[in-house]
């Protein structure tokens, strides 16, 4: 067991050993321009296309539907804006959930600045989007695109993607599913027209995102056009990192059934234990229908930054959606939309291999840290 327990997999999963091996091997052979015709180039091209085929298979897509981007964020930006652009004639209205990743919200802001409209569908106390309102929103005329994440990155709650997709299909509206938190851990929910994900969340290297556009979905790059990646993503691909990303995805999925069930049981242990050992705490998000690795709770009267600092000193890397801990002064839009406490917030997200002993040690130190912070703040 290492000295620091890394519990921030939702931010970035440590590199999978298979990815590391693949990366080192591919750095030596996959450096040439895959668009050229000489030997080294053909080798890079082969590696790239083999990785594309593997990723496509893992995500339930065809290879020619898959493009590689430079991050999950870029996949979302290009996916949202490219689909809106491709469907301009159908309408200029975008429908999204209120707890989508900031990349979705920021792409929506660009769309609004350019004269488009955005409708944000609210969530319940668990962070799940209001399906009735979502279905009603996509039924109105002029909807060019709807977006829904597979599971929430801050609280883990799974979204009703299959049902939302059915509502979209009924009205001919494409659905973009942001699967960043579940790809490599759970099957991709059915019904998407555009799918995005990020390799460093499944144990691949950072700097590789995936943008999948279903055949038949109108799409036109929002950026200056380029020959690469089926004209969807400009710029020279990072072939070694893409090869490593594909290796990590395959390895993670092969282990997923057993490992994600194990992590999910540890999450259950945290969910059940924290309210018993820490007074005035609320565990948030759906207890059952959720991403396997994420659990979030909020401690009343506690400054989230102080708690993160104490946990760091005690050897735990965790994150928080509280305002003073993030780089912004606003609390997390996810917690706000749910209507749950935005202060004293701790997100634990377990990486592959997280040890039960580490979780137990976390549960052993947490009560006293919270008690001390409350005491220092003068809370009786």
């Amino acid at each position, binding site marked *: 067991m290492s000295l620091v327990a890394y519990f921030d997999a939702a931010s970035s999963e440590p590199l999978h050993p298979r990815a590391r091996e693949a990366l080192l091997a591919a750095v030596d052979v996959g450096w040439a321009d895959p668009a050229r015709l000489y030997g080294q180039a053909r080798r890079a091209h082969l590696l790239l296309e083999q990785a594309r085929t593997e990723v496509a298979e893992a995500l339930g897509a065809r290879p020619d539907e898959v493009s590689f981007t430079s991050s999950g964020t870029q996949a979302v930006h290009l996916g949202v804006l490219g689909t809106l652009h491709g469907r301009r004639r159908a309408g200029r209205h975008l429908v999204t959930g209120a707890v989508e990743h900031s990349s979705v919200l920021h792409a929506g802001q660009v769309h609004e600045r350019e004269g488009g409209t955005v409708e944000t569908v609210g969530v319940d106390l668990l962070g799940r989007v209001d399906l009735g309102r979502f279905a009603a929103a996509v039924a109105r005329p002029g909807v060019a695109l709807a977006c829904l994440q597979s599971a929430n990155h801050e609280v883990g709650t799974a979204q009703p993607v299959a049902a939302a997709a059915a509502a979209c299909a009924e009205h001919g509206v494409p659905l973009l599913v942001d699967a960043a938190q579940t790809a490599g851990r759970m099957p991709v929910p059915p019904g998407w027209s555009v799918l995005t994900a990020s390799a460093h969340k499944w144990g691949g290297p950072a700097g590789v995102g995936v943008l999948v556009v279903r055949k038949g979905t109108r799409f036109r790059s929002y950026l200056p056009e380029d020959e690469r990646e089926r004209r969807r993503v400009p710029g020279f691909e990072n072939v070694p990192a893409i090869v490593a990303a594909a290796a990590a995805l395959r390895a993670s999925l092969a282990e997923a059934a057993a490992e994600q069930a194990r992590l999910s049981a540890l999450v259950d242990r945290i969910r059940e234990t924290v309210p018993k050992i820490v007074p005035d705490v609320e565990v948030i998000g759906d207890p059952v229908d959720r991403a396997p690795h994420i659990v979030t709770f909020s401690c009343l009267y506690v400054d989230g930054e102080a708690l993160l600092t104490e946990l760091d000193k005690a050897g735990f890397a965790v994150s928080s959606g509280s*305002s003073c801990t993030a780089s912004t002064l606003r609390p997390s839009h996810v917690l706000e939309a749910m209507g749950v406490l935005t202060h*004293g917030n701790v997100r634990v997200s377990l990486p592959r291999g997280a040890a039960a002993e580490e979780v137990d040690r976390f549960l052993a130190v947490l009560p006293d840290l919270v008690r001390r912070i409350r005491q220092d703040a003068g809370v009786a």
Partner: protein
Amino acid sequence: MTEVTQPALTIDALGKKCPIPIIMLAEQINYVPLNAVVAVLADDPAAYTDVPAWCRLKSHRHVGSYELPEGGWAIHVRRNY
């Protein structure tokens, strides 16, 4: 705004960051009689979400949040027990 119950106590948490407005509210709600209203004046955006969330957790009633002309809100809470 005309039907708003006059608060029995006003807590000035303007300029204070969460969780301080919530700590002040928890400390002082017992100073007012049952069913009386406490107004928390706060301008940390977190308080706008956190005071109603505190009411839900502590089974008090969030009556309403009213924008203040100088920025921030008067967040009204009814003491339930």
